[in-house]
């Protein structure tokens, strides 16, 4: 090879890597869509081939029809469930972060109250919910309380971990430069805790939906202002299996949307600086 030969811009290895990247990019979307589509098709075929009656297992087509037909009822229910979920998540964020900061600032507060947080966390919400609905008059507040109980712990524990994980050299630096406790919290500990908090938030988003649904099962009949769980129960009593499936699909979709939204938020806040959000080339 003489010096004048142009250097190829992409050698074989680089080309292979570029191709792999592209396949990766397309596959990330295509494969899930494909597998979910196939699963739905399989479901449909199983129902048709085995002539399963719709009150045992409705096919996907019927579920979709029901979703459209019962949209008015289901959408109202969805709004109720969503409202409880989001409110519970908001209160979980406030409570979880607030307690984490309190525990971080005062070791005595942490020693005294952390056990309570653990007890609340390890006690299954289904076993506490009936009591809550006895003591709490307002059904909405009862549901909210149950959903909050399930959701706040991951935020508390993750944020606590994050607040304690600030680089020790940076801590020293803050001390040398005479930072106040508040400055250290604001400029060092809270930013350090952000990735941990966002990890906890993603878990809590799913949990608050679970909390909202489970506690509604426990709360039982509600009539006005009932969420998706109640609609599932009700449809079950009436053997309206297609509607049960339609409501179930809505709950699943809600969970996916919440997770995707929180993942997006996490990416938006971290992509400039945090390892978890960085793309590695090789």
């Amino acid at each position, binding site marked *: 090879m003489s010096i004048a030969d142009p250097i190829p811009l992409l050698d074989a290895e680089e080309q292979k890597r570029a191709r792999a990247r592209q396949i990766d990019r397309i596959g990330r979307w295509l494969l899930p869509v494909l597998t979910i589509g196939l699963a739905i098709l399989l479901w449909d075929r199983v129902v048709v081939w085995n002539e399963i009656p719709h009150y045992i297992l409705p096919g996907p087509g019927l579920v979709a029809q029901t979703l459209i037909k019962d949209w008015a009822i289901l959408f109202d229910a969805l709004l109720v469930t969503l409202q409880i979920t989001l409110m519970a998540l908001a209160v979980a964020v406030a409570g979880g972060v607030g307690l984490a900061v309190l525990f971080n600032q005062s070791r005595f507060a942490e020693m005294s109250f952390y056990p309570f947080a653990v007890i609340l966390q390890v006690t299954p919400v289904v076993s506490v919910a009936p009591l809550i609905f006895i003591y709490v008059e307002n059904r909405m507040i009862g549901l909210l309380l149950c959903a909050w109980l399930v959701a706040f712990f991951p935020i508390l524990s993750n944020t606590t971990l994050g607040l304690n994980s600030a680089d020790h050299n940076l801590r*020293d630096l803050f*001390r040398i*430069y*005479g930072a106040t406790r508040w*400055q250290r919290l604001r*400029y060092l500990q809270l930013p350090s805790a*952000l990735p941990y908090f966002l990890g906890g938030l993603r878990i809590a988003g799913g949990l608050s939906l679970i909390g909202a649904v489970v506690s509604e099962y426990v709360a039982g009949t509600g009539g006005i202002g009932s969420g998706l769980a109640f609609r599932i129960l009700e449809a079950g009593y009436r053997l309206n299996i297609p509607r049960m499936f339609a409501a179930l699909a809505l709950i699943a979709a809600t969970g996916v949307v919440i997770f995707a939204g929180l993942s997006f938020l996490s990416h938006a806040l971290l992509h400039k600086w*945090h390892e978890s959000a960085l793309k590695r080339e090789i």
Partner: protein
Amino acid sequence: MATTWRKIKPMGARPEILRMAGVNKVFNGQTVALQGMNLTVNEGDFISLLGPSGCGKSTALRLIAGLMHPTAGAITWAGGQEAGDLGVVFQEPTLMPWATVAHNVWLPYRLRGKSFVAVRDQIRLALKLVGLEAFEDAYPRELSGGMKMRVSIARALVTSPRLILMDEPFAALDEITRHKLNNDLLELRAKIGCTVIFVTHSVFESVFLSDRIVVMAARPGRVHRELAVDAPYPRGEDFRTSADYAALCREASGALHQAMGDAA
């Protein structure tokens, strides 16, 4: 940061800025990290603390930085210590990954309640001195190891401190980058006349940089000997290859081995 720099005065004419007198530090009632350390720091000095690991170099710096207090003895600042008198560089760049380069350099001022706009010029100037004026808005992860260290140095000198403490700042860098940063550090010092205490376990680095070398011994950590590096500044690649440099390195190396020998 002041725009009129301090001038480095000849050795005999430098006013004292800090004194360690009979400083002891004992950890957990058993580890004697430092015993009877005396050190006078004069304005414009470039002092290296040279010694094997475990001889209390970091401990000495942490005591001066006020991160802990001596078990016995005293550390006194001439005229008392004020905010902004001290700049610190650790072995790690120790930058905040969520903040841009300029915001990282802002930190010492920010913690004193100064707004970014108010100290914008000082930040620019400090970054210019370390050759990073084009990287104000970059995030630390976009920088190489040497560049991160430069940001760390800019942050240490942004307040024009009377004393800059550096704890093995270049130990984790490759040889080429380290040489470059050594040269640049001396140029910087010639420009702004800062006073530096520089911890290292490299004989070559200590000879190249400093006008005083404090050789330390371990177990218990103490000052073994103080050497004057009698070579004029500016020092560059010529100095690094000169016979004077080789002779000084031999002398410092001998003192270091002696210090390690009587520890064994």
